[in-house]
């Protein structure tokens, strides 16, 4: 059984009058179990020569539904103005749903989230020649 861990620290000495220091660590298990996630895409890099609109980054059809998959994405650029917009596309499952914006990753920004494998993850870019890295750690 593979053992994979994720640790996050949020810190600031001056955001509030009380210093911020939050640490969280979790071991990545299959849904509802204590069995470690055992598959990964590895760290993948994508370069978009042209600006993209609602381009599928991660296709849900390639992953099992209701999994405890984990998704990491980083904008590896350095621009403070160019960004990747991350979106969830649930339109295939429910006509009442839409492509929903989550947030934007500017240069150096990253995200880490659990992902059930039911909805595609899409990206929209603001410029040409933008690069990102992502990795999925998942279960069958």
């Amino acid at each position, binding site marked *: 059984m593979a053992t994979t861990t994720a640790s996050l620290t949020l810190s600031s000495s001056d955001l509030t009058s009380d210093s911020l220091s939050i640490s969280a660590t979790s071991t990545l298990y299959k849904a509802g179990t204590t069995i470690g996630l055992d598959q990964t895409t*590895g760290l993948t890099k994508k370069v978009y020569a042209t600006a993209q609109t609602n381009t599928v980054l991660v296709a849900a059809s390639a992953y099992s539904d209701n999994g405890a998959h984990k998704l990491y994405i980083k904008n590896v650029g350095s621009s403070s103005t160019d960004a990747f917009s991350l979106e969830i596309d649930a339109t295939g499952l429910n006509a009442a749903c839409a492509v929903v914006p989550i947030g934007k990753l500017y240069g150096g920004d990253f995200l880490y989230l659990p992902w059930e494998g039911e909805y595609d993850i899409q990206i929209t870019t603001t410029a040409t020649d933008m690069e990102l890295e992502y990795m999925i750690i998942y279960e069958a």
Partner: protein
Amino acid sequence: MATTTASLTISSSDISSDAISISVTETFHKAGTTIGLDQTTGMARKTFAAASSNQNIALASAYTDDKAHKLFVRNPGTSTTDHITVVIASGHSVIGKLYGGEFLFIPWSGNEDIDVTTSATNMSVEYMIISEA
């Protein structure tokens, strides 16, 4: 100007033949700038006595749209079967499930509400938003 950072490490020695060891750090800036985010909710905690659906933790109308807000959510429990489902846009889109001890960290544009649904009684959720006007 406030300086706030997030550091993430993902590591495994045995998920593949090549060990994974990813460490990244980012500094939080206002959208399209190098000015630090300067507002926060602090770490909030809610406990739900009963299993509850679509309980709001981030109300989009209270935040400016299309900004570089950050959202941290954690299930502080220890159960490997009970979970918190994090959803966006009034339940239409599930982001994912947080089992005991799990967390997420995402940029949040402030355009859509973030809600949680708990799978059992007496579950808690911790969350924090770091934001800009």
